[in-house]
């Protein structure tokens, strides 16, 4: 990395003011296009579709459920990617073992539900287990190779290979599903009209309760994290560290505590996401690299080191995968990679990333 000069420091730590307003003022056309797109999507979701429209785009029910699946999958991706992006932003450590932490958390949560029967308690177990692993990684290994980002990344690569092999050893190669607790299972009605009955009465969308609840939890968590980063002292320190790594030296020895806290938190989130993933989908061999890749793509699209970027990227990738499955069957995964390539070509730092 190039040296940052005294005069240039402000480039990374400058006051930003009310960014959205300034952005709109600078890009009126783009802002208008986004506004039109938002209105169009709202219409797509809320209004019953005209018949001609359905002829082209298929049943509205299909679209709406793809939309909902995409958004809730985005919530899951956000849970995984946000820890990844924080760890990367603060420590410049591309944690290639992040997918392993996800899978490990899922397995630990599965064991916890088997032993205690409590789905909620399993989140605590998964968080604590993964956080401990994260702290151990930071304390025993990365602390000793600070500033050597390539070496740290290679270490995470070695760890991910070992972790994944050990997890196959313990839990085997078969898929494991975590049962949804009774109080969350089954669909609930939503106020969204998917079609009109012949009598003209509207038919409403029914959607799995657990997905909506988990998505709401992800949103609450995201907002909470944003508040913590912007309103608390430790959050300020983290943001300052992400923006300007020279600021970290001011913290002295406490920088290690901060690193461990962030690593623990990011790893713990990945672990909790493992339970969500085990409930939504399943846990099996290969899911670790699947979610590592998803995190990579989400973070590249959204902007490296940025929490709102992770949220935006997760939403885009979740939606593209699910809508892709409905409309471009054979190329659903390729579609999200295509989005990534386009973002990289036009805005290498990611949609909400800064240089």
């Amino acid at each position, binding site marked *: 990395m190039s040296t940052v000069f005294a005069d240039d420091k402000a480039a990374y730590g400058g006051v930003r003011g009310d960014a959205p307003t300034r952005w709109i003022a600078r890009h009126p056309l783009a802002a208008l296009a986004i506004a039109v797109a938002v209105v169009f999507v709202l219409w797509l979701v809320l209004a019953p579709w005209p018949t001609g429209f359905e002829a082209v785009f298929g049943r509205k029910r299909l679209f709406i459920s793809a939309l909902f699946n995409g958004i809730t999958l985005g919530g899951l991706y956000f849970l995984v990617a946000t820890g990844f992006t924080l760890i990367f932003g603060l420590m410049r450590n591309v944690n290639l073992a992040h997918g392993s932490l996800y899978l490990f958390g899922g397995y630990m949560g599965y064991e916890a539900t088997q032993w205690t029967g409590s789905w909620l308690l399993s989140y605590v177990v998964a968080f604590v287990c993964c956080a401990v692993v994260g702290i151990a990684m930071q304390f025993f290994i990365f602390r000793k190779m600070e500033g050597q980002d390539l070496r740290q990344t290679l270490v995470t*690569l*070695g760890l991910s290979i070992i972790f994944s092999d050990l997890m196959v050893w313990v839990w085997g190669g078969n898929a494991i599903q975590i049962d949804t607790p009774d109080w969350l299972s089954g669909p609930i009605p939503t106020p969204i009209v998917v079609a009109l009955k012949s009598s003209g009465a509207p038919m409403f969308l029914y959607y799995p309760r657990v997905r909506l609840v988990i998505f709401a939890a992800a949103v609450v968590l995201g907002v909470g994290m944003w508040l913590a980063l912007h309103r608390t002292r430790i959050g300020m320190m983290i943001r300052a560290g992400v923006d300007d790594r020279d600021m970290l030296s001011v913290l002295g020895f406490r920088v290690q505590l901060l690193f461990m806290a962030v690593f623990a938190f990011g790893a713990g989130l990945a672990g909790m996401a493992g339970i969500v993933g085990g409930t939504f989908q399943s846990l099996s061999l290969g899911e670790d690299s699947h979610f590592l890749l998803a995190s990579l793509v989400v973070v*590249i699209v959204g902007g*490296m080191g940025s929490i709102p970027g992770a949220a935006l990227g997760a939403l885009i990738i979740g939606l593209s995968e699910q809508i892709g499955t409905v409309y471009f069957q*054979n*190329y659903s995964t390729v579609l999200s*990679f295509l989005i990534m390539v386009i973002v990289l070509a036009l805005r290498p730092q990611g949609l909400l990333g800064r240089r």
Partner: protein
Amino acid sequence: MALAQTTQEGPLGIGAAPRSGELAQWVSRHGPILLLGLFMVLFPIIANDFFVRQIAGWTMILGMIALSLMFLAGYGGMVSLAQMTVAGVAGYMIAVLGVSSLPKVSLFWPWWVAAPLAIVIAVAFGTLAGALSARTEGIYTIMITLALAASFFYLTLQNWPIFNGFNGFTTIPAPYFLGVNWGGPVPLYYLILFFAALSYAVVSYVSRTPFGLALQGARDNPRRMEAIGYNVTAHRIAAYAFAALIAAVGGILLVWQNNQISPFSVGVDVVINLLIIAVVGGLGHPIGPFIGALIYVILRTFALDALVAVGLDGRRFQTLIGLGFLVIVLFSPDGVVGLWRRFSARVRGNGGRNGL
């Protein structure tokens, strides 16, 4: 470091014609590598087909593709995980354009059309991957190229019209020309040896050319490179193109060696293994990737049996690989080549610059 030779050596390097008076000096400087070359030429005489094909052949092919990674990472500071994918693109193209067991997909063009075209397409792909990642700095490259590699894997897995999806291509023959069936173990061995030696020599030579030095300058300090007149992004993209050429040739040899290609030839684990090969061998010297490949191929071939023989679970092979990799990364960041350099430096008590 390996890079600490001086520019004065320029005219003496491999590839430049040494004048007769300097020949002895040239030979003595490159003594070890010339001896190794001689050994490799004679190898089929002393070894059976299994060692020629399964050990030496694979080592040189994986070494070449890892050399392409080493060139970018060691000289350019760009750890690209897309090099295996570049090789895969070339391999797929030789199957699509040339001969395979799938007449519906393959075009059955002769090898002398298919192979150059496959290389061109793979180099274009590698250059594009470079253009996408060269504008970001350092460690981002790993993320972006890993994602690109994964996207190619999923593309081959999901696309049937061109890549024949899950199944890929089988029975892809090596060419037959000059009256030789190059698919036979020994002819193929010499074909691979020729290209492996050529790519090693070219990379060694290029490292001391203006292009190679500029790449190392951009690795050490891209901002300063701009401030002395270099277009760093253009240099990086050119480096990706050059590296892609080596990987593409390696990819074609890989398919001729293996007679088949499928998505699992370009899977994420394969991509990661290639990085492991390059890192374990050492990113500081072009011989590193070949050493790494040799270690990897030997482990892959024998470790399972060895593990079982000492009473361990043979299925824990991956853990063994991971542990070995960790040990190297933790204790010798410049790989086996670095270990050797430090060892020979200690023995001789000098800076160890001429370790290889």
